């Protein structure tokens, strides 16, 4: 891995910590656009049978073991950002390798 790429990935970690871990704690607790719409027109209750997400360590954007509060939110924000980056670097690597294999 080049220094260039290492610096970029480090930037991703910083973004995850600052935006996902810290800034998100100060997010507005108001309903978001779709939730507000559903309240306004009276469509807040699900009417169909959905598919349950697997039970895991996070309850919405909080780490369950930490309850609510700053650290529960920060853990979720950082973990989520890093999970997304991990998935994409893995996928990107696969696609890059495939390109290298098909090039003459």
């Amino acid at each position, binding site marked *: 891995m080049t220094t*260039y790429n290492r610096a*970029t990935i480090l930037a991703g970690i910083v973004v995850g910590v600052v935006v*996902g871990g810290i800034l998100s704690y100060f997010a507005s607790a*108001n309903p978001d656009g779709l939730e507000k719409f559903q309240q306004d027109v009276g469509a807040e209750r699900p009417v169909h049978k959905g598919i349950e997400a697997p039970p895991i360590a996070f309850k919405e954007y909080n780490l369950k073991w930490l309850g609510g509060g700053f650290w529960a939110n920060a853990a979720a924000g950082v973990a*989520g950002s890093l999970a*997304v980056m991990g998935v994409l670097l893995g996928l990107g*690597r696969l696609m*890059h390798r495939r390109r290298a294999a098909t090039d003459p």
Partner: protein
Amino acid sequence: MHIGSGFLSPPVWGTMAAVSGAALAASLALAPKRLDERRVPLMGVMGAFVFAAQMVNFPILAGTSGHLGGGFLLGILLGSPLAIIVMGSILVVQSLLFQDGGVEALGANAFAMGIMPCLVGGAVRRLWTRPRPGGLAFVFTFVGGIVSVLAGATAVTLLLWWSGSLPAQVTLIGALGVMDFIHLWIGVIEGLVTVAVVRFVLAVRRDAVIDAVPRAEAKKAAA
């Protein structure tokens, strides 16, 4: 704007899963031609940024909040196919790990927050990859941000309507009016934030944003 679990009827979510699945497959087929080794870290970092930024709800109007969609931004920086892959990955993580967006609604959410805004972003992209992006790039990005959010909001409303999830006394036009009025203001923020972030990323990592092989040359080589 994530549609939660239990709001879409099986025919609607099934159709949207098929549509978004096809778009994702097409994006995966198109993507390798655009991947160079600098684009991969940019994909990862921008994915992390959009995930994190979606957690930061800002207040708009009275008693409402909005957050960045990000598909439009990704479309500009990465081109539509890679942007669709990044948004798909974010939505899967949000749905499976954080219960944000119903699992069965993944296709619908990928369409409204991924595919459509990513395509609008991809259309605006070439204004920014020119040597000196001018005022035109600013204007089209601001307007494009609004258009991309309204397109998603309109799609979500239609899907809820077709699923029978809106009360009988609500007309479709009325519902679209309420939903799109709220999202007009979210779109304004989307446009402004996108201009700022695109300018920042171009300032620090321009070579990762610009295609290593310009479009015209790539076409010639393929012919």
